[in-house]
């Protein structure tokens, strides 16, 4: 992937299993966000393709993305979540009903009519998660959803993600929080300098990392 002629990430050759939770690990600037955006189609590869086991034109219809800084529309919490359904053709009343169910599911039942912009950081992330989940995506991308959240909010979001994974949603999540990666990951993509430095099952990655850099990263050393 290039921007203004500068290569940001790649070359990357990657296959993902059909289910599970993949954690994209790596230091800041290693290309985690770019990789997720590329997979979701928010960026175009300079060469090569991103293929999913579904028709290409429909791929994004079956995916959802939670951004690191969630976009809060100038609407109420209910309407913000319902928007994800109305743009798919759902009737407004049905979408609002569904939105309220999902809001309650993520713990936003007490702020349904509040403007989204005045929510706390954790509540905004939950709203973004509800907006993504209401589309019942087959693949869910999350870009550091718990960055800047306290322990309680992080645990609540991790609980929701575990439930979603148990229901069969494929999750790809970027984080640089090693503790979170250990708690959630089925497999790990370790990114460094724009390339996938190591890809392995979570147990294997954390127990016996294959590369010295990954070993140093897990050991808490600064890697660049």
């Amino acid at each position, binding site marked *: 992937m290039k921007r203004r002629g500068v290569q940001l990430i790649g070359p990357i050759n990657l296959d993902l299993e059909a289910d599970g939770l993949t954690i994209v690990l790596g230091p800041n600037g290693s290309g985690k966000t770019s990789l997720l955006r590329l997979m*979701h189609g*928010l960026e175009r590869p300079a060469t090569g393709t991103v293929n999913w086991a579904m028709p290409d034109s429909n791929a*994004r*219809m079956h995916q*959802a*993305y939670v*951004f690191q800084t969630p*976009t*809060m*529309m*100038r*609407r109420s919490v209910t309407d913000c979540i319902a*928007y*994800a359904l109305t*743009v798919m053709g759902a009737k407004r009343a049905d979408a609002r009903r569904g939105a309220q169910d999902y809001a309650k599911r993520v713990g936003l039942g007490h702020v349904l009519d509040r*403007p*989204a*912009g*005045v929510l706390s950081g954790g509540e905004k992330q939950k709203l973004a998660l509800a907006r993504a989940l209401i*589309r019942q995506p087959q693949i869910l991308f999350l870009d550091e959803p718990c960055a800047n959240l306290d322990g309680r909010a992080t645990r609540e979001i991790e609980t929701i993600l575990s439930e979603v994974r148990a229901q069969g949603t494929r999750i790809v999540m970027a984080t640089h929080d090693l503790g979170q990666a250990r708690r959630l990951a089925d497999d790990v993509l370790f990114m460094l300098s724009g390339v996938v430095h190591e890809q392995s099952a979570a147990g294997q990655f954390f127990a016996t990392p294959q590369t010295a850099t990954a070993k140093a990263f897990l050991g808490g050393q600064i890697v660049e």
Partner: protein
Amino acid sequence: MNDLSQGLAEAIYRVATLDPELVNITLRSLQVTVTAVVIASAIALPLGAWLAVTRFWARRYVIAVLNALMGLPPVVVGLIVYVMLSRSGPFGVLGLLFTPTAMIIAQVIIVTPLIASIAHQALRDLWSEYHDLLISLNTTKRQRIATLLWDGRRALLTACLAGFGRAIGEVGAIMIVGGNIDNATRVLTTAIALETGKGNFSLALGLGFVLITLAIILNLAIHSLSRTERSNLW
């Protein structure tokens, strides 16, 4: 100073007694201006939103031209509309010259670029905020435009009010295409010009105070109805 105080007294007296001529002129001013702003907004707001979400090679030039047209000289617009609507012009057969419709046409031409340009500025910022989310949600261009127009409605209200402010204070173009005919096309601004020309400064000032008060009341009413300054709003 004497003229000012006399003008204020004249304005108060005419408003208090609901002077039929003043009511007639004021209502016509409102009818022409509100109609023009509604039509201009219907054109300019979607245009501003479309320019915010669409990328094409001439986009920068279109925006530059739109910005330049904000300063369109009303007298020139009036002259062009006059030529188009005059008997020998291409639309002369419609018989619109010296009617409120001609005044509305001229005001729409003057106000549309102003509203579109302000709307584009506001919606461009909103689009940069919403871009990733709306692309991720697989929205169509029509949905993106509708979303920006709805979520940016408070900023767009300001654009419409700016258009209203320009239109209600406009005199050059509507004087030319309306002709300032008593009981037909005379509005507040053309009446002020007429009374000033006649040396009737107190009446002209009185009409001026009515015009300013009208603009302030309408702005306050719209802001109040749309609750733009209410706390805790997004």
